[in-house]
């Protein structure tokens, strides 16, 4: 009795206890992947009505859990604020940070992080009223643009307009919600922000149907899952799980047809699904059908997109740059062999 009191208290106070050398061992022992997510970003990670985490970033972690533990639900989600996300990863509080994080040189090097492949090529885009009749950002000469003062967004905007020889009149505000409210009230023609955020913000307008997003992006915001320096094996696992999801879409493998594909598909496909003769899983200390489990759990990259961000969701995001390289985008899986 006294002992269990003591154990319960200690377990709470000390959390995971002392770590092993390898994240994989920790994850296996714990029986769960600890995944850092946002505190609620539409389409990427938020709790659903039943209290389960759902979203694009969430499913990346579920795919890793399926590959490592054969159970996509063996994930403990830790909502992290913007400020504490890197500390949580560095201090070992989370195994993966799957939290709309842009890959930059500074974060990759000085902060001691490793970025897995980009899962979402985000970038600054534009939203206008449909009644304006504008189809491209290049038609925006002379427009008034609502923007938050002193932000990167404002800098990108100025660069883009001057590079294309266009003029605009900025309407500046201090806070992001003021910018949005001003645009919604009709104080300016154009609202600008990252694409992923634009889609969500369109929905909180008084009348979402009046607004359209323009196809151009004017800045680079490649969002990727992150792990910490110093554990190459874990980095490999996360990296190749992401590539397996993209590769599956390239090869036409979905969560529905994977059974027949494993039996009758090309050698590439059979290798991807762990039905080949080689022993790819063992190179990462995983089961041979690790990628099949991941694909079965969350579907291929395209399925993931359609489920959380695509045209059938309220967000209605176009794939754009995130199309496969064969369809005019830049998503490209490294050869899985």
């Amino acid at each position, binding site marked *: 009795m006294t002992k269990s009191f003591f154990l319960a208290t200690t377990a709470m106070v*000390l959390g995971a206890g002392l770590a092993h050398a390898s994240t994989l061992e920790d994850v296996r022992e714990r029986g769960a992947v600890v995944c850092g997510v946002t505190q609620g970003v539409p389409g990427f990670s938020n709790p*659903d009505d039943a*209290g389960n985490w759902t979203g694009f970033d969430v499913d990346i972690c579920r795919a890793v859990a399926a590959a490592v533990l054969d159970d996509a639900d063996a994930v403990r989600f830790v*909502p992290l604020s913007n*400020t*504490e996300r890197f*500390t949580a990863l*560095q201090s070992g509080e989370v195994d993966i940070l799957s939290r709309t994080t842009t890959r930059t040189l500074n974060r990759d090097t000085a902060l001691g992080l490793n970025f897995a492949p980009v899962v979402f090529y985000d970038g600054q885009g534009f939203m206008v009223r449909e009644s304006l009749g504008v189809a491209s950002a290049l038609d925006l000469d002379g427009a008034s643009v609502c923007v938050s003062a002193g932000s990167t967004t404002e800098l990108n905007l100025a660069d883009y307009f001057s590079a294309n020889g266009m003029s605009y009149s900025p309407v500046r505000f201090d806070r992001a919600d003021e910018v949005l409210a001003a645009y919604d009230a009709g104080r300016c023609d154009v609202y600008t922000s990252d694409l992923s955020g634009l889609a*969500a913000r369109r929905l909180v307008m008084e009348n979402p149907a009046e607004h359209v997003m323009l196809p151009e992006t004017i800045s680079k915001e490649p969002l990727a899952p992150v792990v910490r320096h110093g554990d190459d094996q874990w980095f490999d696992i996360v990296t190749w799980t992401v590539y397996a999801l993209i590769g599956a879409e390239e090869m036409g493998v979905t969560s529905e047809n994977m059974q027949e594909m494993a039996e009758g598909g090309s050698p590439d496909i059979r290798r991807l699904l762990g039905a080949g003769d080689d022993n790819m899983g063992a190179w990462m200390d995983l089961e041979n059908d690790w990628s099949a489990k991941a694909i079965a759990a969350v579907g291929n990259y395209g399925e993931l997109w359609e489920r959380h961000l695509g045209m059938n969701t309220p967000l209605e995001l176009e794939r754009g740059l995130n199309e496969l390289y064969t369809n005019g985008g830049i998503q490209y899986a490294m050869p899985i062999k």
Partner: protein
Amino acid sequence: MTDRMLSATADHPDANAVIRERAGILPPAPAQGRLPPRTHSGPVDWIHRNLFPDWRQGLLTIVVLYLLYLSMPGLYNWAIGNATWVGDRADCVANGGACWAFVNARWGQFMYGFYPVAERWRVDLTFALLIVSVAPMLFPAIPGKRWFLAFSLLVYPVIAFFLLYGGVLGLPVVETARWGGFMLTLVVAISGMVGSLPLGILLALGRRSKMTVIRLFCTTFIELFRAVPLITVLFMASVMLPLFMPQGFTLDKLLRALIGVALFNGALMAEVIRGGLQAIPRGQYEAATAAGMGYWRMMIFVILPQALRIVIPGIVNTYVAIIKDTTLVLIIGLFDLLGIVQAGIADSNWLSASVTKTGYVFAGMGFWVLCFGLSRYSMYLERRLNTGHNT
């Protein structure tokens, strides 16, 4: 004070009656031949006395009624007329009013966060126990208050912890990461309150101590924590602290936040209580010493009961601030009531202007109920202990 009152009474034998008359409490004594004062009763008279006593007040009443007439229909239409009670995002967008269906669908989450549904009785039981152990202290008629107080300060926190966290007596462990919503707001607020009062008392006594080391320590502590915003303390606890600890050796995030909130508010509380201590006349200390009491007995039985009574409004003020400060735990990734509502309105299945407004109104109402309840209780307490000094 008493001396002056006595002399005033001596100068004017009926001084109190004069004062009362000036304050308009008593009607002037009826002169010979006048009618007795009109009796005040009936709704018409109530309206006359309270809403239209003279032309200025009457004008104000009309203006206020007009403003209500302007704002009420809109509010009514939003909150009730056009509101959606059952349905999904599409219904809410179509109706345009408040989206109570959203609150309805997420009620359990707003109350308990991610606490497993099957274990939520433990949360209910914990707060029911709190009410049972605190309620007797609110009513003068119930005996044995000392025991209830000891129970709720010493035993209850232990029981509450093991009930909520589990791990003993076959209760499954529910990690603090799953705590959230209104429950987390209460946990942070109540542990802040329970922790800050004793800490504040000790710090206040320490700051007035004659022992230099203790006085220096307490003063430094108070001034350090008072000089930074709570958000800095939480930020340090959640972002900096883990970097100083060995890798994989993590202190529970909620626990870090609770300690931060208690230390910060302890420092604020110490200054409130020091105000009370300084208001106690020297005579009280000297009398207690003369009666042969040591330091602690003097403090516990003579000084603190009087000092705390004086500063009840200040203590409750700090408590209300603690409740409102609980929302700051959002920046360290904990979902209090506001946090869980914000996470909810970001669900793309609900995302819309109507749901956003409804969510914030709901969170606001939750905090208002808590703070208003607390301030009503403090008014009751002041009246009962008669510390307002307004007679």
